[in-house]
């Protein structure tokens, strides 16, 4: 007799999703992963809007990732019109990306994953059972928030970063305060790996096909995408290498790269760019066995190491900004022309690509956004099936708990994934 087990709604992740496991007796036939956020159709909404409006509107795709969406959109529009920005602007933008990394990883690890490790329902119970751990996590996250709020003018959907420049640059005092705050959480960020190195109680998963942006040293200057075991391809040609399919049971499209289910995000980055600087580099070396060539069960550990790395890197960026001193450059208004621009950034959850075309008046005629979660969706579905099969015959409850934990390893962001491209 066939039966279906449903997990709905999926919890402790961003957006609305569900999973169905179809069984024939004990045997698992298939697993359906549904992303059911109501579609907001951003790519269609952008058509007919002016280039200046694009970054302000598109950041609303997703709250958690609004900074990286805004930065990527700015870069794509600037790419179309050939706009160059100053070093202060570039450093401030990168600082905000690092802050986003800290916020996202801290929120995910301490508020959404930690309850699994301690066997509680969520943040409310955490506050009772492990108040100190929760406070540590919130303190790390708060520094990310402070940076975004100070540099971006607002925590979610930041306003201070704009085309060609900044609304205002940060003062010495503000930079010094942020540096102090970062320094305070540095030890906690360094220790986080111990907590999230707990082995996961489920069987081995398929080996991922990692995908990252290159070059890693220039987070705002991605030129190419590279996948393990494949020649890298220029960012500009991404459409020839990434295919998307509409699924009839999900509101997010499925992306495949070179016909494979790509895996993007923290673990992918550590695998393909293992040369981290500073303390995070040393930390990574000591954990190599658990990370290199490993499956997604290692992703939370990778996030913990990246969180530390982002804290260190943010400190270096701030030092450089202090050295340069605050300066208010005039931002030149870009002059629109008929063109297409494309840019990509490593969002906390992985590769994010934006591409726009404009007519000679600067009115948007094509918008395309590829999000990390859309890229990861295929790999996640594959892993869910593998895990469900690996646990055939076990109690249903144990299986659904394991499946939910696996989903949290991926840290999916469903708001991001559901909105998809125009063809």
């Amino acid at each position: 007799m066939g039966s279906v087990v449903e997990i709905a709604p999926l919890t402790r992740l961003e957006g609305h999703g569900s999973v169905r496991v179809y069984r024939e007796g004990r045997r698992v036939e298939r697993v359906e992963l549904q992303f059911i956020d109501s579609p907001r159709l951003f790519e269609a909404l952008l058509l007919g809007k002016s280039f200046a409006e694009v970054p302000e509107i598109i950041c609303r795709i997703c709250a958690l990732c609004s900074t990286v969406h805004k930065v990527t959109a700015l870069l794509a529009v600037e790419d179309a019109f050939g706009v160059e920005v100053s070093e202060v602007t570039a450093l401030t933008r990168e600082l905000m990306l690092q802050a986003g990394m800290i916020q996202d990883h801290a929120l995910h690890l301490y508020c959404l994953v930690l309850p699994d490790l301690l066997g509680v329902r969520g943040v409310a119970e955490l506050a009772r059972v492990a108040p100190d751990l929760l406070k540590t996590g919130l303190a790390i996250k708060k520094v990310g928030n402070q940076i975004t709020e100070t540099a971006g003018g607002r925590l979610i959907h930041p306003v201070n970063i704009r085309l060609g420049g900044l609304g205002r640059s940060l003062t010495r005092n503000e930079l010094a305060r942020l540096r102090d705050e970062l320094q305070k959480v540095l030890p906690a960020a360094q220790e986080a790996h111990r907590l999230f190195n707990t082995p996961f109680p489920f069987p081995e998963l398929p080996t991922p096909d990692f995908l990252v942006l290159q070059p890693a040293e220039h987070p705002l200057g991605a030129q190419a995408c590279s996948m393990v075991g494949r020649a890298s391809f220029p960012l500009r040609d991404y459409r020839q290498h990434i295919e998307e399919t509409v699924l009839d049971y999900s509101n997010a499209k499925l992306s495949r790269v070179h016909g494979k289910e790509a895996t993007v995000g923290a673990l992918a980055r550590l695998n393909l760019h293992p040369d981290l600087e500073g303390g995070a580099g040393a930390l990574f070396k000591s954990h190599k066995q658990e990370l290199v060539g490993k499956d997604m069960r290692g992703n939370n550990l990778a996030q913990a190491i990246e969180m530390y790395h982002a804290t260190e890197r943010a400190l270096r960026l701030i030092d450089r900004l202090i050295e340069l001193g605050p300066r208010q450059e005039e931002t030149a208004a870009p002059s629109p022309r008929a063109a297409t621009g494309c840019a990509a950034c490593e969002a906390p959850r992985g590769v994010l690509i934006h591409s726009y075309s404009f007519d000679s008046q600067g009115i948007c005629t094509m918008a395309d956004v590829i999000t990390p979660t859309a890229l990861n969706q295929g790999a996640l579905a594959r892993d869910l099936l593998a895990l469900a099969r690996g646990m055939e015959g076990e109690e249903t409850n144990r299986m659904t708990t394991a499946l939910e934990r696996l989903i949290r390893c991926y840290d999916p962001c469903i708001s991001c994934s559901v909105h998809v491209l125009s063809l």
Partner: protein
Amino acid sequence: MRRMKLAITGLTACSGCQLTLLNCEDELPELLGHCELVYFPLAESGNVLDVQFDAAIVEGAVSTPKDLELLFKLRNASTHLVAYGTCALFGGVAAMNNRVSTRRELLRSVFGAGEKLPESFPPVPLANFVSVDAAVTGCPPEKQEIMELVVALAAGTLPPARSYPVCTECRSHENLCLLLEKRELCLGPVVQGGCNARCPATGIVCEGCRGPVREANVAQELELLLERGFGRDEIERRMSRFKPEWDYGKRS
């Protein structure tokens, strides 16, 4: 004190409003002592819907049959229903094209011309379907506003509504007026304050993310912008970003 039972969730939205709550790091641990998060899928597992809630805090516009079903359930089960954020109150970014393109056109241009389109209608505010007891505006709302709301709910009351425009706060900070002095397309005069004029404070125009202020003099703003050389199309496009319908003839 009895801990109040809360439902917190999102419909057609970006989760930014819900996340604003989780961003109150300093207040969060204490706050969690006052309420029971019975239904909060973003941050909790083991959620239940079939209980009586003291309040349901709902983010997002309504644009699918599923949204509607959840909204009705929460309305029936809750003493207070709060429209949380600009999407829930005015439709928000997802609704910006409601007046200019049909839902079907939009869906087709995103999902292709195939048979299978998601079920979806033009995004509208919660109040189009249910009665709403309190509102917090903003895209996203200010932290302090969500704190005020939760504190008021815990005390069995509702927070007071604000009724002054962004300009009031902007002037009290002595910012450079972007509309009059730099001749930029700033919506401050017709938009609800409470954000401390965040955007003009960094030298960037108010994009209207908190929706209309109660006594908005829309006609005057329109005249002013037309005088400054902005086209009617561009003005309406900007005004619609967070709320598709405005009464352009309205004078307060």
